[in-house]
């Protein structure tokens, strides 16, 4: 009897412990546009959806790869990757997760209306080898497929078919798709309610397969309430007044104040995003310059001069308030292929810059228009202002044309620019992604040079990129190293810095700071 009572008391105690609600109220400036996991590939969408959906392969806190819904994977043939799936996983609606769902999800991400095509660009098809073993067949050998598959979330085939959502989105349709506001994942949290632009509530999925993983054992969040707050000042005020616990994107100008506030802490780390200035190195005459009949930016010496005229330390100190990592290369150290030896800047030297300009035939400099976004990257417009002032000191008279991201991207995507500021994130964490999009000649091939608006084109670079796509191991690493060296020598861009991302939160809340700027609440704790 006594034993029974004790057992009952223990059971009550346990359930009370489990039931203790730990709510985290979280805010950031933007709201996810959709709840469809294969539609919009932007941070504001994935920051919510990756709490709800799992990929086959997960990211670790250091952005390495770890088993997710697949327990192991192997390149069994050059064109075939095999994934062994985790048993006993259930979707939030109670149905079991199977290989059928994986095949369906990978093929769904390949639909033309998906934004996630880059992650499955080499995938020809996915087939079921055994009920819980899936083969992904690629058109060319793809050594980095696991890095890419880590961004493809797994949906339920039965649920998607039942709700007529087998394609990610359909802009031709005049009605809303079910997946725009509903989810059914296998993840650590399930969507409880969603009012777009107002409030998104997620609750702990107690049946999630990963709660016993070492990183999640201490996690105790039972409910996440996400509310977007657009205005910077209001977002900070809400944190200071205790109405929210966690702000993903505190404005830089308020960091000092937040650090000084009691009960608030700021964590920071580098983001996988590099800010640089790219130049039109293709046209015979620039669209926006006073130089007629020739393109000064085609001359390496002019590009070097613009580079060496920039006092990057001043930008780091003053414009970025120390919140940047100065760089001389294309991507930050978290990316596979990063080589410290190639991360060296041309030295800041105004005299040398003037000499180079004179040598190239522009002793009095020239005029040019710098296109710059003003609401896309951290302090983007201020960076451009600083650069314009620095160029003025060596005689290059740059006009600053700064605008919001919507017209900015439209303009540069028409190649309607002479020189522009851009930031580039690397979600696959592999060098190929940056090289292929930014520096490959635009030859119509999928993904080739789609963000290369300076039309940089170097046959050797193209060759190296093809090697990155098809080879693996040391030959591939060698190709990346050579491409990075070529990038330094050719100066198609003027690299500036990697962004730092600060997160602000109440001191009772802990969450690992992630370089992909994504919070993982399955590792978070509220005391």
């Amino acid at each position, binding site marked *: 009897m006594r034993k029974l009572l004790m057992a009952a008391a223990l059971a009550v105690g346990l359930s009370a412990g489990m039931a203790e609600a730990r709510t985290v109220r979280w805010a950031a400036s933007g709201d996810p546009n959709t709840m469809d996991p294969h539609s919009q590939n932007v941070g504001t969408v994935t920051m919510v959806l990756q709490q709800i959906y799992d990929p086959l392969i997960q990211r670790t806190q250091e952005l390495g790869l770890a088993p997710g819904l697949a327990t192991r994977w192997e390149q069994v043939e050059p064109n075939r990757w095999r994934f062994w799936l985790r048993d006993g996983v259930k979707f939030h609606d109670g149905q079991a997760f199977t290989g059928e769902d994986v095949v369906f999800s990978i093929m769904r991400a390949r639909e033309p209306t998906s934004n996630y*095509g880059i992650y499955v660009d080499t995938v020809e098809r996915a087939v079921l080898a055994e009920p819980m073993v899936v083969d992904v067949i690629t058109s060319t050998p793809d050594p980095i497929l696991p890095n890419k598959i880590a961004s493809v979330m797994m949906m339920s085939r039965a649920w998607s078919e039942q709700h007529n959502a087998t394609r990610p989105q359909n*802009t031709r349709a*005049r009605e809303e798709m079910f997946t725009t506001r509903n989810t059914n994942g296998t993840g650590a949290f399930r969507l409880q309610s969603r009012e777009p*632009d107002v409030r998104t509530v997620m609750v702990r999925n107690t049946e999630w397969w990963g709660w016993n993983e070492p990183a999640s054992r201490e996690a105790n969040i039972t409910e996440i309430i996400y509310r977007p707050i657009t205005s910077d*000042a209001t977002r900070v005020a809400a944190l200071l*007044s205790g*109405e929210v616990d966690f702000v993903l994107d505190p404005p830089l100008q308020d960091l000092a104040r937040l650090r000084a506030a009691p009960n608030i802490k700021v964590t920071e780390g580098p983001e996988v995003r590099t800010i640089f200035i790219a130049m039109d190195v293709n046209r015979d005459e620039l669209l926006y310059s006073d130089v007629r009949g020739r393109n000064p930016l085609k001359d390496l010496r002019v590009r070097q001069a613009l580079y060496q005229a920039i006092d990057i330390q001043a930008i780091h100190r003053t414009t970025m308030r120390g919140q940047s990592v100065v760089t001389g290369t294309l991507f930050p150290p978290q990316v596979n292929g990063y080589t410290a030896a190639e991360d060296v800047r041309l030295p800041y030297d105004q005299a040398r810059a003037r000499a180079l300009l004179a040598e190239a035939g522009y002793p009095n400099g020239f005029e040019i228009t710098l296109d710059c976004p003003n609401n896309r990257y951290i302090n983007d417009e201020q960076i451009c202002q600083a650069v314009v002032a620095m160029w003025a000191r060596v005689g290059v008279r740059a006009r600053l044309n700064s605008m*919001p991201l919507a017209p900015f991207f439209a303009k540069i995507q028409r190649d309607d620019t002479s020189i522009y500021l851009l930031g580039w994130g690397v979600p696959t964490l592999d060098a190929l992604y940056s090289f292929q999009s930014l520096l490959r000649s635009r030859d119509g091939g999928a*993904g080739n040079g789609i963000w290369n608006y300076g039309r940089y084109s170097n046959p050797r670079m193209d060759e190296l990129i093809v090697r990155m796509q098809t080879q693996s191991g040391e030959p591939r690493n060698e190709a990346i190293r050579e491409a990075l060296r070529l990038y330094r020598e050719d100066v198609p861009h003027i690299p500036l810095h990697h962004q730092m991302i600060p997160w602000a939160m109440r001191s009772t809340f802990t969450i690992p700071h992630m370089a992909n700027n994504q919070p993982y609440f399955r590792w978070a704790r509220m005391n």
Partner: protein
Amino acid sequence: MFAFIINRILQAIPVMLAVALISFAMFAYVGDPVAIMLGQDFTEAQRDALVHDLGLDQPFWVQFATFTGHAIRGEFGLSYRLSRPVAELIGERAPATLELAFCAAVLALAVGVPMGVYTGLYRNSWLSRFFLTFSLVGVSLPTFLIGILLILVFAVWLGWLPSFGRGDTVQLGWWSTGFLTWSGIKALILPSITLGLFQLTLIMRLVRAEMLEVLRTDYIKFARARGLPNRAVHFGHALKNTLVPVITIVGLQLGAIIAFAIVTETVFQWPGMGLLFIQSVGVADIPVMSAYLLLIALVFVSINLIVDLLYYAVDPRLRIGRGKGGH
């Protein structure tokens, strides 16, 4: 009377068309929705397909005709940003904006009129001077600054009121109201003050000027000579006669409150139509922007019509003029 209304409605049609055309033409300059919808990774083929799907490859006039044709039937299509029907989005946001506008208007009237009467009657008291100085603040400080100051004082320092959002709302059919919960009412206070402050000071100054004017007239002197009590003179005779222009202004300002709640809604993250509009501008969400601008034009046109009708009812001269067949 009927002919007058028909006439007015016919006049409203070209106004609405002009607004539709101007707003539509503006969209060519706000940016390319395709660039934003495609994100960082896309192929040229995907881009062309999307442009074609959205009908953006058609000539401007064809696009405009399609838009107008759908708009007449109340169809504004899907929001590019949220992939949801625009009419539904606006319907969801309207209660928040209307409740906020209502509170701001009531506040402006309930505080502005008594303050105006007081400053009109006791021109030289220190309190009147204080009110007038205070009204200068209301007129000259920009709305977003007032909002941020209120948040700083009442949310961050004192911790009495929420700094953002609508609090808990109760769903009455399709209407979501914040009036029925304590947190909803608390959340209304700061945005209402922010939004209503300018109108409040405007009404106060208007009532004061009208009072000063009316108090000098003969019938007020006569009323005093008859020995009527001050109360009856001030409120029964003077205030009543100042209210005609005040009502006109309030009517027109109500439209302005609804239309220009954008700034207040952004500062307080108030989930209304103005915030929806701002978020849509950021990503060039053309269907939402055009629907919103048309709706605001409709609000102004309707309010103008009602004000015209009120004139017609209030001012006998208009009616006599028509009865005689015009002059």
